[in-house]
């Protein structure tokens, strides 16, 4: 029995090392200085840890990090709020045809965004928000509605209808019931959608690169890709930049993994 345990541990440990390799490469090379970083020694630990790569990467990426934050916070909040209201109606105030409307709304979850890209860009140009952060926020909110609505609807379905009825018998209207009764119960669902939207929008590349052509206004994922493609940037800076760009979602995952896992399935479809 203990031999079997030993083998199991060995396999899991080996898998863990394989899984950690890319993260290892990112971190150790980020901590090398420009003189000691070389592709020939990419697997070796730095002789002396240096923050040079991080300082330089921070200087280059911090405006884009700010853009990412300014994009992701309003986009995640707005799409979650809209999703909560929609989910409430679709689960507790069904009407004739509401299931069909729900299905029509859900379709947005499955489309490859390439199929809307060109009209989207033209439309954003037409309403004068192309190339701007508000334009990007609008895009993320609109295409986030389907997933947040789905998560909230599935959450509200499990809230007993009697709670809603009790509130309406007391004379509370639809909105009042939502505000007073349903919303206070919704914190776990908000945690799921906020974390889900935060991760998804932070990690987005396609909308960032197509909706915002100006490098100064671009989110950090696009800036990192530009950094990596540039021959004049040292490799330790690129790796440090990768760590910096990954850190916000990594921290969210480490701190709030429980909620992250709950949004998993919906997330994979959208990824």
């Amino acid at each position, binding site marked *: 029995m203990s031999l079997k345990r030993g083998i199991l541990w060995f396999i899991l440990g080996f898998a863990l090392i394989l899984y950690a390799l890319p993260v290892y490469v990112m971190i150790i090379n980020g901590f090398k200085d420009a003189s000691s970083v070389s592709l020939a020694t990419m697997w070796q630990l730095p002789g002396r840890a240096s923050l040079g790569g991080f300082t330089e990467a921070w200087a280059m990426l911090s405006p884009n990090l700010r853009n990412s934050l300014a994009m992701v916070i309003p986009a995640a909040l707005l799409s979650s709020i809209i999703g909560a209201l929609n989910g409430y109606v679709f689960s507790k105030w069904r009407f004739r045809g509401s299931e069909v409307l729900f299905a029509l709304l859900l379709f947005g979850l499955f489309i490859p965004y390439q199929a809307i890209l060109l009209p989207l860009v033209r439309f954003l140009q037409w309403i004068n928000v192309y190339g701007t952060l508000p334009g990007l926020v609008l895009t993320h909110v609109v295409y986030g509605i389907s997933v947040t609505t789905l998560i909230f609807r599935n959450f509200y379905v499990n809230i007993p209808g009697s709670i809603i009825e009790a509130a309406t018998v007391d004379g509370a209207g639809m909105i009042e019931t939502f505000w007073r009764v349903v919303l206070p119960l919704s914190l776990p669902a908000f945690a799921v959608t906020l974390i889900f939207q935060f991760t998804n929008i932070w990690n987005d590349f396609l909308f960032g690169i197509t909706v915002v052509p100006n490098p100064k206004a671009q989110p950090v994922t696009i800036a990192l890709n530009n950094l990596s493609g540039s021959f004049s940037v040292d490799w330790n800076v*690129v790796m440090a930049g990768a760590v910096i760009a990954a850190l916000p979602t990594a921290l969210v995952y480490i701190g709030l993994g429980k909620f992250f896992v709950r949004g998993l399935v919906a997330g994979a479809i959208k990824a």
Partner: protein
Amino acid sequence: MVNPHWLARNKGLLILLPSLLLTAIFVYGFIGTSFFFSLTNWRTLAVDLSLRNPLWETYTDMLAMPRFQADLRNTLVFTVLFIGLAVGTGLGLAILLDRQIAGKGFFRSAFLFPYALSFIVTGVVWRWIFNPETGINLFFDILGINRVLESAGMSPLSPGWTTDPEVVLSVNQVLAHAWPGGATFQIEWGIPVALIPIAIAATWQLSGFVMAMYLGGLGGISKQVRDAARIDGAGEFRMYRSVIIPMLTPITISTAIILLHVSLKIFDLVFAMSGVGPGFATDVPAIFVFEMMFKAARYNLGAAASIVMLVASCLVIVPYLVHTFRSRET
């Protein structure tokens, strides 16, 4: 004038209205517009919305392009490689963790971790891990494999990974025999070697997700089932192969469909790792669309390719949704 009673009764609809309108424009309207663009003569910076004659010419032109043929081949090969690797790895990890073991939660979180990172972050790193001058190939020196090979008079091992233009196991001859049109392909139908590193990187990123799906399913299989299998004399291996894995079939199907959906529209990872690759060996439809729309100004061509992507996604997802919906009702 709208009847106030109607409004009171349809407050729900009123709340949904903004979302419905936005979806009508941004999803359905834009898809329709993309489809319309794909039928027009708009193939330079100057907008030209006159319809092509014959109407479907952009599509036939596109299907005749060696590059687009390569994209279709690459999507097919990548999908098979990636789903095979990711489902196999994820199932393996889930089975390993399907028992009382110290550190289970830690392992589970560690294997799922890559899923929280962006494809760009990981693509930037994988690009160097699979660089022929460095990365994995250094291990062949470090581990002494190349020294052994050289002393045996063989050349050292140094695969070109994403820079390798080779297409192995070509089936063009077979296709030409099977079907008269098969001889007209301008590309090699086989496995582009350069796609293998990309499938490995994608597996690294998503196998933890597969594991989490399977662990969810394994948690739902009762102890009685396992005990019954053991009483019947099944060993650990037999029990999983003959009893548990068949019971997990619904999870295997949903997971494969989700992964299929990821692979049909894969963009960022390839973009960051290798771009179009040597001889379009790693080009995919999503990159084709991006370049036609935002670099080459061949708008109708980009729109046509995006519609092909949409149709492919729908062919995968619609039957699955209909099936899930029906089984939930009964």
